[in-house]
């Protein structure tokens, strides 16, 4: 579903992502971890087509995100770290705009919009202008919009920022249900507990390099610190004296 093929990205003289090769199959929830400035957001921006790789290529469902961005975007739902909405549209109008953008038939779009409004408990304020929403409400609406077209790939950048515990639970349940139906999730997060609880595999990036790729169990074996938490493993791996790839 998602393929990074020897992808590098430089900012001037600085290498933000170095030779990243990664394949994420259908139905997997992949969590990308790493300290600030490790290259997580750069990887995500390249995945959704906002940044072009300096070298290598990225494919989503077989479509190159640089050469054929529209075909690739048709398969993707994206929840950015900072939700962007139109202040002068209501939540429902925004969802209609997204549904129309994906060319969804009217009757189907209506059903999906109602489904997402119910799922994310947006009913109370769906017809208010987005300018009156709190950060959490905006984030829930962006989640709803990203899932409207039942994407094959969902890309999440720090998805839980601004969400209350109940909304976090809703999102977790939803991700579990959708991945079991075949949706692939690529998530960048600092919430290690969530990655440990939900991710099928984790990748740990340090200074632009993928230092570890595998399951949490494999990470424990590799770091040889049996019975420790993901937090301890993560700190061990990302410390200056951490293991080399």
């Amino acid at each position, binding site marked *: 579903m998602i*393929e990074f093929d020897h992808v590098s*990205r*430089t*900012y*001037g003289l*600085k290498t933000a992502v170095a030779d990243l090769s990664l394949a994420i199959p259908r139905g997997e929830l992949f969590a990308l971890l790493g300290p600030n400035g490790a290259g997580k957001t750069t990887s995500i*921006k390249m995945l*959704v*087509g*906002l*940044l*072009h790789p300096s070298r290598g290529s990225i*494919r989503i*469902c*077989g*479509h190159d995100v*640089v050469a054929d*961005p*529209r*075909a690739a*975007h*048709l*398969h*993707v739902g*994206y929840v*950015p770290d*900072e939700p*962007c909405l*139109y202040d*002068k*549209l209501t939540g429902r*109008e925004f969802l209609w*705009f*997204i549904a*129309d*953008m*994906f*060319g*969804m*038939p009217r009757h*189907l779009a209506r059903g999906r919009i109602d489904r997402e409004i119910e799922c994310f408990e947006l009913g109370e304020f769906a017809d208010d*202008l987005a300018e009156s929403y709190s950060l959490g409400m905006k984030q829930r609406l962006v989640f709803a919009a990203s899932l409207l*077209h*039942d994407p*094959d790939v969902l890309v999440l950048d720090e998805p839980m920022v601004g969400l209350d515990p109940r909304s976090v639970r809703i999102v977790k349940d939803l991700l579990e249900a959708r991945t079991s139906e075949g949706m692939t999730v690529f998530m960048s997060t600092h919430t290690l507990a969530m990655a440990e609880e939900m991710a099928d595999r984790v990748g740990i990036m340090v200074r632009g390099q993928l230092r570890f790729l595998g399951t949490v169990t494999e990470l424990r074996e590799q770091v040889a610190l049996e019975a420790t938490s993901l937090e301890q493993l993560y700190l061990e791996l990302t410390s200056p004296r951490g293991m080399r790839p």
Partner: protein
Amino acid sequence: MSGPTAPREAVRLLTLDEESRLFLRLRATLVWETVRSMVVGSRLRLSLVVMLSGLFWGALYGLFVEAFSFLEALHADVISLLLNAFFSSLMVMLVFSTGILLYGGMYCSPEARLLLTLPVRAETVFAHKFREALWFASWGFVLLGSPMLVAYGVVREAAWPYYALLLPLMIAFVTIPAALGGIACLTLVAWMPRLRIHALSLAVAGCCLLAIWLGWSLVFQTRTDAMSTAWFERAFARLAITEQKLFPSWWLSSGLIEAARTQPSGRPSATGLAEAVKFLSLLLANSLVLLLLAGWLARIAYRKGYSHLAGEVPARRRRRAGLVDRLLIGSDAAVGRPLRLLLVKDLRLFRRDISQWSQFLIFFGLLGLYFFNLRSFNYHNAYASMIGFLNLAVVGLILSTFTTRFIYPMISLEGRRFWILGLLPVHRDQIVWSKFLFSFLGGVVPCAGLVFLSDSMLGLPWRLIALHEYCCLLLCLGLSGIAVGLGARMPELRESSPSKIASGFGGTLCLVLSSLFIMVVVVVAAIPTHLFLLARTLGPTVIAPDGLLAWAGGPMGMATSLATVTVAGLAATAVPLASGLQAFRRLEA
């Protein structure tokens, strides 16, 4: 590697037409909601905007009718020359303003970030942002150009085809420089991202130099024969460079002149109409070709340029404390220390915010240039005094836009960071006083300088200069008091954008009160002085020695006027400040 997967049946890529319709629908909804919110939530502001725009339009229309009637009597060719000069300078400004607006909309806005992650064509996003930039860049042309062109039609007694062709000609014209701005913006960002600032600076500097050279050669060629026939002839000879037949500005002015042509019977001239349609077709054809070119360029360059810009690393800049900072912080005296520290903080923020000091510099710089040119003309003493007062009013009005735009929102923005100040040993009053001092000191230095420059160029006597400087001091005090006092009285703590805070109810009220205050001070101070000078120039035949006008122009009238402006100035300073201080003390952040 597996081949591409087909999308789910429920989704599909839209055609270009469908995408365009979707964005037009989005724009219509956004405009409707914005207007509705303004009608419901900002009636005062909307009414003021409509009323002032109407007044402005009417005043311009009257002015242009007079000007065209005067010029028509002189020589008809002069009008063509002036139209060409106006449209060609407008064309240059539109290229820059659309380019800069598109840069902000396409590369720096959260909306662009959202749209580029959706399955939409890059050229459709460009077209969406282009329409927005075109509107914002050219609404001024509608406001300034429409009274001028309607007045031209009225003076020339043009028939209906002129008025029917007016809008299509204007729209076709503004699209050309706007598309050129779009093309320049896309090209610079995609292929010369590192050079974009330098290229823009060089282009702006080039245009400014050209404008200054033209202005200098027009105004400073001779000082003795200003407004004489020879002066006009030389000025028009300079302006002839704008009459290039390859310029869209020439096509527009020619189209308008032809459309306004009538037969002796007053009916539309068939030849004139045909020529006007020909010029309209020329404008349309060129604007469409340029739009096609811009769309093609957007298809190949927009995403690439966006990626280039998003990948730029902001330069790390070390900042040192300035001389004024060091002077203010340096003293170990405890007296006024929090106030001095707050002043230094605001000074640093001002210095590091290019949008603030650049506007400050541009407006006051232009005003300075205008005042400097005043010596080119000869004035009678009474009129020189009147012009001096008008210049004082202009300085006050410009300062009031700054105090409304930048000073009024300061308390609201401080409120958002209240948790920082709230934990410091700073009394709330000191925050308000620091804003007042910052505004007053920042305003009084350039304003007093400009008023002195204006009066010196006009050759006014020192007594009048002293009076103007005193009024300027009162204006700076009062305008700072109004802006800071209202800002503290009506803070908008949830809003992070200073421009939105300034354009709300409180900001509008601040601007209106400031304008009224300026009018009161300038009119009350000007009338006795003007009457006094008029009586001295024209003698007692015009102003009766024992009448009210003579009293007003005498020592008692002057003393009364001085006392009134002093009271008005102190009241405008103290009343809003006291009210603001009281409200700010009670504020719950």
